[in-house]
């Protein structure tokens, strides 16, 4: 009975996190529209999208690799579900960030499996934008230098004693913010979904497969924002966690609304420059904290 009850709770948490993540994505779209003086869609638009696609006709293109076409959707939901449970159990930050990087492979799989040229170029762009992940690992290294652990529970305990890492390691927080920005739609680094590629890597995934992708996006948004707050602010009660996530979405929406989408070359160049700066910062931190 107990295990059934806890299992039900876990599923309920997963569903609520996904819906809240989709709501955040809707809020992101709405804010961008309002900043750009457009009415924009309602904030629950992404939830409606997910429901709409769930009941649309579903097909697999004749040119697709069918097993991979369907398999990547399941893998996408699977890896972010795993990341969510690692997050709520206070597990290793390294596992979550590993999953974050593997999302690139999922995008690559989405793009290549259909045979569509638009999907293919979306997938290839996803791989070349892997430069954005390197600052993430430098941020993680800095956090590890300070806290001597990569367990989320230990990182949160450290902040209860020493104060938020947002203040102690502000450049690392900026780098991780940039990484999250690179994953947000309509942002300066969203080259995988550029309009010249129709919908990029997800062009050919329609019906229930697209609904699966929407679920993955909602969950991914929730996990990334919650991880940022856990790592740089510390332990928060649920209402404060939700408020913090909304504030982060407001910041991200401003960044996306006022910056044009870069060319793939510029996007990768800026990400590599940030990586260089972060490596320098990490070296300084290492020398100061552990001389």
């Amino acid at each position, binding site marked *: 009975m107990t295990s059934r009850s806890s299992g039900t709770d876990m599923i309920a948490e997963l569903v609520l996190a996904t819906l809240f993540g989709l709501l955040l994505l809707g809020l992101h779209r709405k804010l961008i529209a309002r900043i750009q003086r457009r009415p924009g869609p309602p904030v629950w638009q992404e939830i409606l999208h997910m429901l709409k696609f769930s009941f649309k006709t579903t097909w697999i293109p*004749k*040119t*697709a*690799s*069918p*097993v*991979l*076409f369907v*398999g990547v959707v399941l*893998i996408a939901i699977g*890896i972010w579900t*795993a990341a969510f449970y690692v997050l709520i159990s206070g*597990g*290793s930050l*390294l*596992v979550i960030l*590993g*999953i974050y*990087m*593997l999302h*690139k*492979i999922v995008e*690559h*799989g989405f793009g*290549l*499996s*259909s*045979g*569509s*040229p638009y999907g*293919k170029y979306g*997938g*290839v762009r996803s*791989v*070349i934008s*892997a*430069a954005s*992940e*390197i600052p993430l*690992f430098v941020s*993680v*290294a800095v956090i*590890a*230098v300070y806290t*001597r*652990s*990569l367990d989320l529970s230990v990182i949160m305990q450290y902040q209860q004693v020493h104060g938020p890492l947002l203040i102690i390691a502000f450049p690392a927080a900026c780098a991780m913010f940039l990484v999250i920005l690179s994953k947000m739609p309509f942002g300066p680094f969203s080259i995988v979904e550029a309009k010249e590629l129709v919908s990029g890597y997800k062009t050919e995934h329609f019906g229930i497969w697209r609904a699966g992708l929407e679920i993955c996006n909602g969950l991914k948004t929730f996990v990334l924002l919650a991880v940022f707050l856990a790592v740089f602010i510390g332990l928060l009660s649920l209402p404060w966690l939700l408020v913090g996530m909304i504030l982060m979405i407001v910041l991200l929406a401003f960044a996306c609304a006022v910056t044009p989408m870069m060319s793939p070359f510029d996007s*990768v160049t800026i*990400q*590599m420059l940030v*990586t260089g700066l972060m490596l320098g910062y990490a070296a300084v931190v290492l020398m100061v904290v*552990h001389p």
Partner: protein
Amino acid sequence: MIDLIGGVPLFVLEFGDELVYFTPYTITLFLLALTFTVLVLISRPEKQIDIAFGGDAYRAKEISISEMRFRRFMAIACGLATMGAMVTGDIFNFTLFTAMVGITNVGIVAAVKSPHVQDAAYQYGLVALAATVPLFAGAAVYAAVTGSLSMIELMKGTVPAVPLIAKGMLMLGVIGEGMAPFYAAKAEMFRAPGAPYVIMCSLSSLLIFLRVVEIVMLG
């Protein structure tokens, strides 16, 4: 410096100094490598569509059975090497698996009859070949300084501290196998048709990179 980076080892299989172990981190990576290797086994390649520039014409690229067999074999070999790199507890074995991943990545696209892809594979091969120098040199410095190549010994902290140069060389070697900024040629390889096989090229590099992040934080 930091204990139990990937979590508490769940299972350790020792063969003298050689060992295999699973932590929550490495088992996650191993399962992903296994999942994609199974996908390679059971998937058929897609028919990639090319659009003629400036017109409405398009054509689908077909992959012949003999080409598919060879590329599937190389992709499975790549998956096995990646799985080995995920679970090994020995730094020298890790470098061997990494070098094998580089070779199999070239093999996955070697049978594609496209000049762009062949050029990219050749250039990637040169970078990967050059990267093996710091890769194996890094492992050699590990052995010279600590007297052991066992990751468990490094984790225990019973051996002398590993110099930063050794960690840097090991990282550089892995990055040269296909991570930013050395992945430009590799991105061109992804023009090749055969999605289930091509994906193994990017997956293997990424997983190896994720594993080396854990390794350099030990000791």
